[in-house]
């Protein structure tokens, strides 16, 4: 290096970034020396994605400096120069599945004859050579659609290497992989490390980083809270850093957001509002059993891909389990039937309201009454007046802000849309309410309002299952079940510590 300093492939110096009201990054300074493999960990919302955006030139920092390969980072518009210095492999594949492996490797940079005509034999030859050089065994003539998830990641890595990049960011590459595939991917990564490639590795599975990384950076609330070799950071210290000592030290539990659970709860021999026995789904969920009493609120926590959302889908009938039984207030549900689950008392608030919650250009009234068509008139008739009356009742009781019940629901704010989705689930007076990340993407005021709505439902005897790994959402629960790789691995009572719960979610096991 010209200045004689140790060579860093990537470096941020006091980088800050603010999105609206939230400070995503606060004076983040990290330096990744060549040949290192660095783990980047932190809870959801700690600023990992923003930092990756800054390091890959997709996000401009408000202040601070980014240096790549010992030089100041190029202008954001110079995508090609960024790509030569850093590449990111995202969880979602950017491989074009209809093209062959070789074409994906040389996308828009095919070897040509006379500058115009594609030289197919050279394309295949060079693609094969590149993969062999790095010890990656994939048939280059294969359609990318036929690759496994792990092989797609490898193709993306190879494409980056081909462009001359020697610094690669892996963003949760193992979230969708099976154990065997993870092992294979790690083997490749270690091989590439020996060849001098530097990695920044983002993962929620803490045990993984010990397999492939040498050092770790922990982010919390947008700031770097730890930066050390992994030898010096046992798992419990990493978790403590992620959660924060101050917060982690104090017990946490229901923080007054809810009345005591006595409300509506039956005696010990009362029929549970929800009972799940031996629920099974191939490659996703293994023998999950639990029960929820009327008026009780239970959290189901787990990582992305842990199977928690699959469990929710099976409960509400969107997914047909391969085995096991679900009963609502003693009535066994017909597997995979949404309507049957609804009739027997399961209400559902999906995670992504845009994908599964609302029909945006239909009216608020229409969206609110979608689960209760039989109440709107005889013989399938929908009386608009009755629909407006029923919807008006929900709008008023949940304080949904809308110009009228005839306004298209897509025009409402995110918080009000979410209230409407919750209101719709409650419209049929369910015995069990299944909420998946119920406050994701809503503002603080709406969040509080939503928890209030849930508390009211509980007071009325509705059992609540909150599927999430957001600690704030889990705070309102009487107890929290933890699912890891498809199995229930632990349970926490009303009083749990952030650190213990996070450790269990990350698969480290409660201590």
């Amino acid at each position, binding site marked *: 290096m010209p200045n004689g300093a140790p060579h860093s492939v990537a470096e941020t110096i006091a980088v800050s970034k603010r999105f609206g009201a939230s400070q995503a990054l606060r004076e983040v300074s990290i330096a990744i020396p060549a040949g290192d493999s660095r783990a980047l960990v932190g809870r959801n919302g700690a600023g990992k994605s923003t930092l990756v955006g800054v390091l890959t030139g997709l996000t401009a920092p408000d202040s601070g400096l980014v240096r790549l390969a010992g030089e100041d980072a190029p202008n954001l518009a110079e995508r090609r120069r960024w790509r030569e210095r850093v590449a990111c492999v995202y969880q979602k594949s950017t491989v074009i599945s209809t093209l062959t492996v070789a074409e994906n490797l040389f996308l828009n940079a095919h070897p040509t004859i006379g500058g115009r005509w594609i030289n197919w034999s050279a394309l295949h030859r060079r693609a094969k050579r590149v993969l062999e050089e790095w010890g990656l065994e994939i048939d280059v003539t294969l359609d990318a659609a036929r690759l496994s998830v792990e092989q797609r990641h490898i193709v993306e890595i190879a494409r980056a290497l081909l462009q001359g990049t020697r610094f690669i960011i892996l963003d949760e590459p193992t979230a969708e992989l099976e154990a065997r595939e993870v092992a294979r991917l790690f083997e490749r990564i270690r091989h590439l490390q020996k060849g001098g490639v530097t990695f920044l590795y983002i993962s929620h599975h803490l045990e993984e980083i010990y397999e492939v990384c040498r050092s770790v950076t922990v982010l919390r609330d947008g700031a770097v809270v730890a930066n050390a070799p992994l030898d010096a950071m046992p798992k419990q210290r990493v978790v403590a850093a992620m959660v924060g000592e101050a917060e982690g030290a104090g017990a946490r539990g229901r923080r007054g957001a809810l009345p005591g659970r006595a409300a509506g709860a039956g005696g010990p021999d009362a029929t549970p509002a929800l009972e799940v026995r031996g629920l099974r789904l191939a490659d996703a969920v293994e023998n999950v059993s639990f029960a929820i009493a009327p008026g009780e609120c239970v959290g189901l926590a787990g990582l992305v891909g842990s199977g928690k959302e699959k469990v929710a889908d099976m409960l509400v009938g969107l997914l047909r389990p391969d085995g096991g039984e679900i009963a609502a207030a003693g009535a066994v549900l017909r597997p995979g039937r949404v309507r049957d689950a609804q009739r027997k008392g399961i209400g559902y608030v999906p995670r992504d309201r845009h*994908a*599964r919650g609302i029909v945006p250009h239909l009216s608020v009234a229409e969206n609110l009454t979608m689960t209760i068509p039989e109440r709107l*008139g005889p013989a399938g008739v929908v009386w*608009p007046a009755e629909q407006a009356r029923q919807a008006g009742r929900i709008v008023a009781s949940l304080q949904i802000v809308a110009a009228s019940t005839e306004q298209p629901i897509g025009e409402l704010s995110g918080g009000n849309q979410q209230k409407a989705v919750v209101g719709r689930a409650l419209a049929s007076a369910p015995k069990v309410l299944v909420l998946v990340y119920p406050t994701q993407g809503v503002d603080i005021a709406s969040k509080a309002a939503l928890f209030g709505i849930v508390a009211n439902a509980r007071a009325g005897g509705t059992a609540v299952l909150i599927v999430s790994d957001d600690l704030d959402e889990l705070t309102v629960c009487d107890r929290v079940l933890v699912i890891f790789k498809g199995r229930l691995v632990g349970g926490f009572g009303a009083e749990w510590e952030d650190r213990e719960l996070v450790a269990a979610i990350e698969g480290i096991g409660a201590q």
Partner: protein
Amino acid sequence: MTGTVGTRAVLPFGTGLRRRAASLRLRELTLLPAIGLAMLAGALVSDAFLTADNLLNILQQSSELSVVVIAESLILIAGKFDLSLESVVGLSPMLGAWLIVKDTEVGGSGLGLNGFAAILIVLASGAAIGVVNGFLVVRMRLNAFIVTLAMLILLRGITLGLTNGKTLFGLPPEFLYLGTAKWAGVPVSIWIAALLYLLFGLFLRYHRTGRAIYAIGGNAEAARAAGIQVERVTWGVFVVGGLLSALAGLMLTGRIASVVTTQGQNMIFYVFAAAVIGGISLNGGRGRLLGALTGVLLLGILQNVLTLAQIAAFWIDAAYGAIILVALILARVTGGTAQDV
């Protein structure tokens, strides 16, 4: 219902409702000025235009198209597609007529089926084709465009093959009734079309399943999560589409008192044009039958005016196509809000 809303957070409902209703009505009436303009042009071009006979003639000639437009609108609102409807218009009546005609020399089956039984078979065959389309599109998840394109060709081919390309005449009066009879001086086909618009309009607006069709076209995943049986409803829409198209074919056969192998051919273009000009979104979930009806009427009047204006026969299609384009552009411009035409 304003009384039930007492929170400060909510704006007074009455005004919002009225505004909303007004804007809805406006959107459905976008085409009225264009229709008025076309009628004015007709009156200027020919004295014969504004006569009761001619106007009834326009309505009768539009009646078959309008029934197929209902069928296509249902399918489009559910977020799907059916190109094969025009071939149902040809095949189903041909099948019925073929079963009726005794003389194998002129292309009949020799079976001599009763006219009423034949009508049932016409309708049943239309529904059955809908079942097949629904199976391929909903159950096998094949692309609706290519499936129904293949069906369009296949069904037309069967229509030709059935009679070796011959036109079938000499059909019993009950088989031709829908295209020939008049009630209160107005052709039955007009009554039927009007009745169907009323029925399906009310169904789409006021029936649970009708609203489910909009929800499915708007966001099928959300509809499923809300407990709507997406597959069943979508499949049903294909079946009803086939049934309505067979009925339209029967009306057309009655009007011309025979079945030609080209019956209904190219109709699908006008079906789509009428539906889309009338505000039915090709992306699903939007549009109303009232709008589609104004689309049909505009096309019907235009065709009549072009004929009366004695445009050279070979140029009529070109003029028609150009006018449809202009109508689409106008519908887009005057539609105000982003209407995905």
